[in-house]
């Protein structure tokens, strides 16, 4: 029985990683930027939610909408200020500005809200469901459901709509995309908006699940979500979901049955082994450069 309970724990944790990883991979898939500030937008989302609930007394849905909107806005601003001018620069330059933005957000929020962790208000009452000796709570279920729904929606947007095609085209060749009449700036802003809104939603949901928010809360989940995204095949949306879940379960099982001390090392080892065997991640397509 314990093993099934641990599996549930793992899936619950994994869907948190997945939720953040989806936004990560979305942005990556379109503009090939490892947006290290993504974890911090997630943090910002949690704070926006906090303000919405604790200061403005909003309910769950309005708070969620507000947080997503503000996060999207933040994402767009970051893109316009820090990334846009660097579109033709080496990608690693963007990586550095992303790191800079990440530091800026962390310290900015520390100054505004203070370094002290804030308790996230209890927006949804936690309900624990018992199935025999197994337990799972409603918030875990919600996060899980939200991640799956998001993957489906985004997958639809990216692969089935005209905008999605424009996104993918822009991701490959901005100039050629312009020559098709695509407004690349708008498409990239949109991509950032969606990715950031997802991070914002993640911030709120995780805030509810683990009600402690602080300015540096985005670093580790950001890193782990990135790992999850790569594990699943970076740029591949269902890959992010799968990668997140695999990581959650692997982490939980490691803690439960091997060693809690080494769990992080083991997670990274799994990642490395997977990449060595399958260099493009679990669901990544082996794309060999045509010579």
């Amino acid at each position, binding site marked *: 029985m314990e093993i099934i309970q641990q599996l549930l724990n793992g899936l619950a944790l994994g869907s948190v990683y997945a939720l953040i990883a989806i936004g990560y991979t979305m942005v990556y898939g379109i503009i090939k930027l490892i947006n290290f500030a993504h974890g911090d937008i997630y943090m910002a989302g949690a704070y926006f939610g906090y303000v919405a609930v604790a200061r403005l007394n909003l309910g769950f849905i309005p708070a969620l909408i507000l947080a997503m909107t503000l996060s999207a806005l933040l994402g767009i601003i970051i893109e316009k200020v820090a990334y846009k001018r660097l579109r033709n620069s080496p990608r*690693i*330059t963007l990586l*550095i500005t992303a790191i800079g933005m990440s*530091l800026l957000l962390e*310290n900015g929020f520390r100054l505004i809200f203070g370094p002290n962790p804030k308790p996230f208000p209890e927006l949804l009452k936690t309900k624990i469901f018992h199935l025999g000796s197994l337990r799972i709570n409603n918030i875990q279920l919600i996060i899980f459901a939200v991640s799956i729904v998001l993957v489906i929606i985004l997958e639809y947007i990216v692969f089935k709509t005209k905008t999605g095609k424009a996104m993918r085209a822009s991701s490959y060749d901005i100039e050629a995309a312009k020559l098709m009449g695509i407004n690349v700036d708008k498409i990239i802003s949109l991509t950032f908006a969606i990715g950031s809104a997802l991070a914002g939603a993640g911030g709120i949901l995780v805030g509810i699940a683990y009600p402690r928010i602080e300015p540096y809360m985005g670093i580790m989940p950001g890193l782990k979500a990135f790992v999850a995204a790569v594990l699943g095949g*970076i740029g591949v949306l269902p890959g992010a979901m799968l990668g997140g879940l695999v990581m959650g379960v692997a982490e939980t099982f490691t803690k439960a049955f091997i060693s809690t001390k080494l769990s992080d090392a083991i997670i990274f080892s799994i990642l490395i082994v997977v990449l060595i065997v399958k260099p493009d991640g679990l669901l990544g397509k082996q794309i060999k450069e045509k010579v």
Partner: protein
Amino acid sequence: MKKLKNLKLILGIVVMVIYSIFFLLIQTGALNPYYGQILIVLGINIILAVSLNLVIGFTGQLALGHAGFMSIGGYTAAIMSLNYNLPFFISLVIGGLVSAVIGFLIGMPILRLKGDYLAITTLGFGEIIRVAVVNMDFLGGPRGLAGIPKKTNFTWVYFITLFTVIIIYNIIRSPYGRAMLSIREDEIASESMGINTTKFKMMAFVIASFFAGIAGGLYAHQFMFLDPKSFDFLKSFEILTFVVFGGMGSLSGSLMATTVLTYLPEVLRTFAEYRMIIYAASLVMLMLFRPQGIMGNKEINLAHIKEFILCKLLRKCKKKGGAFNVTIEG
């Protein structure tokens, strides 16, 4: 050949003069221990930056685990000093070698990965090293390793930094360096020109690990204390920042960027809690302002500097008249 010898001689003199000036300033206390320490940190950072530049800037492989190798070298050297009482230099070299060997073992499976996948695996290895250290009680675990003798001083750092820069410069300006550059430029074409890319990538990676290990040893014997958290992925990012801000594939760029970015946080201390904000904002601004880094992939040309010295200072102009400016080599 004679010209070359002259140049070397002049450079040698310049290097010794700079050393003597700083040495005297420190000895007389005109440069107090605070500034002395910043200089030492600067040297360590330069070693880290130029060695990482060999992998990232010259060979084009995005590696994000440099801090991990620094910690391997640091801990090894510290243990050599603490438990075996070895002379400082020997401890340092052993630290570097152990780091290089581990670099080799890690490099074997992962160097065939590309781009972001390589980045995340190297980052992963950096973290694995950190977690491993946390769990090794003989290294002090999370409490850190204390009581390392204070052996690092300005002289050691100055000359080791100098040698590191010279060695890496000499590698770059050799067939080995060209082979590495060709990998950065186009791996498929490089292989088609008879370059065993895996071998050269490995070489760059191992050499960089070695020097990161040396830097770690210097760090350990300067701060007399090591803790695993000091070598997490954020530290690797910091080193990466030096490299990118200096210009990928430019040693002189790395030198300048490291100097600026090592001093900047100290200068900003007066801003207290706004310090990190200003630092982060300047970082973003610097990159927006010069996306290719201070030097791009160019170097300050020594020959021009020599001419500058000869012409302006010694009044032995080769060219006739005209304003002279220090130009940049292609």
